């Protein structure tokens, strides 16, 4: 049996192609070895003006038949010759030559066409709706059930003659969730003013506190009761995560608020806050984009705005053109995604549509 093996002379070959989607300074070299175990060394040389430069040597593995090497730092448009020298166990030497290969540059990265298509399509719809919103056109957004829960909570809290506690979380003024929490605060403050009750807002960040004071005062003014607005109820507590949680727990136990709102970005301290709030029997409405904290809020609070519902709620309340148009643009993209998934899965299941399915899958291949 092994007699036949020896007859099979080792075949070694290689192929030099342009490195795809680059600035033209690289070439790809692919080497094929039929019997890698009978090879001692493999050398590749690049010929430049009669001078041979050896490329980095490659390590040979007994069972690996194919090797990929990249020759870098060469000139775009110049033609190069490559020589492959393979030394085998029985002292034979195989030489192969490939001449005048020219590295080319690509103007557009073909593998990234899918990103460009999506970017253009998505930007178009975002700014199409922004234009409409800025012209004052009415863009439909469904009412978020959470908003009714907010009004109801404030109502029941004031019936019991107890104040409302509003927590904006640990985010900074630049966090989207904190901005959404502030616009919901505006609505709650207005409701509280209408019911002639009090609202307490302990803050984690001085800048967010200043914004909260501004928005609460505006809420009282919109309800026609600027006299009821108490600036001292909106104060800076501390900038330490657990110190803040302990401080707010103390306020809950002292003031015994009827309704507590957690609207903003939260970290692990959400647990400590929601638990004490539940234990004093307050109605709790939460809202955050922090997915790791949502399970605790959902289990401990009466109602929770999940992630993007917060943005939809604040857009519904403020009718701010920027927020509303963003949600409309995102909705279009989500609709296209849902359609794409339905069509894609169907094509993937029908045998006769398989080449269309493969076309889609290749289009979505990123590297």
């Amino acid at each position, binding site marked *: 049996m092994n007699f036949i093996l020896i007859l099979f002379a080792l075949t070694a070959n290689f192929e030099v192609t342009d490195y795809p989607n680059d600035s033209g300074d690289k070439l790809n070299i692919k080497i094929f070895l039929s019997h890698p175990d009978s090879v001692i060394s493999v050398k590749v040389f690049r010929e430049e003006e009669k001078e041979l430069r050896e490329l980095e040597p490659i390590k040979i593995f007994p069972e690996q038949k194919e090797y990929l090497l990249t020759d870098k730092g060469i000139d775009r448009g110049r033609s190069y010759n490559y020589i492959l020298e393979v030394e085998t166990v029985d002292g034979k030497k195989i030489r192969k030559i490939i001449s005048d290969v020219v590295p080319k*540059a690509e103007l557009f990265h073909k593998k990234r066409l899918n990103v460009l298509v999506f970017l253009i399509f998505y930007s178009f719809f975002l700014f199409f709706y922004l234009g409409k919103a800025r012209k004052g056109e009415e863009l439909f957004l469904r009412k978020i059930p959470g908003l009714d829960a907010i009004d109801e909570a404030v109502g029941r809290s004031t019936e019991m003659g107890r104040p409302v506690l509003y927590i904006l979380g640990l985010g900074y003024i630049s966090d989207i969730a904190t901005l959404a929490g502030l616009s919901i605060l505006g609505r709650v403050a207005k409701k509280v003013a209408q019911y002639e009750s009090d609202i307490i807002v302990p803050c984690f960040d001085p800048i967010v506190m200043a914004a909260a004071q501004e928005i609460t005062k505006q809420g009282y003014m919109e309800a026609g009761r600027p006299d009821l607005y108490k600036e001292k109820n909106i104060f800076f507590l501390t900038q330490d995560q657990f110190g803040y949680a302990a401080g707010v727990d103390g306020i809950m136990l002292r003031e015994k608020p009827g309704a507590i709102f957690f609207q903003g970005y939260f970290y692990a301290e959400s647990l400590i806050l929601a638990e004490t709030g539940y234990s004093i029997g307050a109605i709790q409405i939460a809202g955050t984009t922090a997915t790791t904290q949502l399970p605790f809020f959902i289990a401990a609070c009466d109602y929770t705005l999940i992630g993007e519902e917060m943005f939809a709620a604040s857009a519904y309340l403020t009718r701010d053109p920027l927020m509303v148009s963003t949600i409309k643009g995102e909705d279009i993209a989500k609709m296209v995604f849902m359609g794409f998934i339905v069509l894609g899965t169907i094509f993937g299941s029908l045998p006769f549509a398989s080449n269309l399915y493969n076309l889609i899958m290749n289009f979505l291949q990123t590297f």
Partner: protein
Amino acid sequence: MKREVPLIITFLSGIIIIIAFFIPLYPFGSYKNFPGLQDRFLQWYNILLGFTLILGIDTLIAYHWKKIKEGSKDAPYSIALIVSIFITLAVGIFSWVKYGDPFKAGSPFMFYYDYIFVPLQSTMFALLAFFIASAAYRAFRARNLEATLLLIAAAFVMIGRVPAGDNILNIYLFGYHITLPKIAAWILDTPNMAVQRGILIGVALGGIAMSLRIILGIEKTYLS
């Protein structure tokens, strides 16, 4: 002048990064050993991002310095804070100069790290083990369908992912061997995966919209 130029800078730097993503040609992409615009901008971005790490420190020190000057009841803690900033810094610089690398095993900085910083930070978060138990007991009620589903799924994953759950359930259904760990693994692999994907797509869409508005100067809050 103070508002327009920053917006132009944001526009140019953002656009060049996006263009360089699509066009590998020099000057956007690098050619031989001439760095392209993308590689050079990223290098500068790395340097500058390091400086944003320390931006909050002046407000921190100013806040605690004010508390000390006012002589509030929490003043001693603020003193402890400011003193610990300077001691840590001094120990760090000393170790860096003496050993050439502050993380050298046995250096004073590593002493501070191993015996003061690590216990403080890890114990801070170890508190949560207690709070999650008390919150589970005092606040997690199956008050409606949604909360009930959440608690059932939580129980399956909790018991399925610890050794205790390995042999509580052992049944064969339609040729499949059903155990608690397999149920927990399935909950994580399919329903959890599908929802996390839905949320991931929503968050990505929101992030892209925000970034587009920043580059085109519609969103200016970061300049406040």
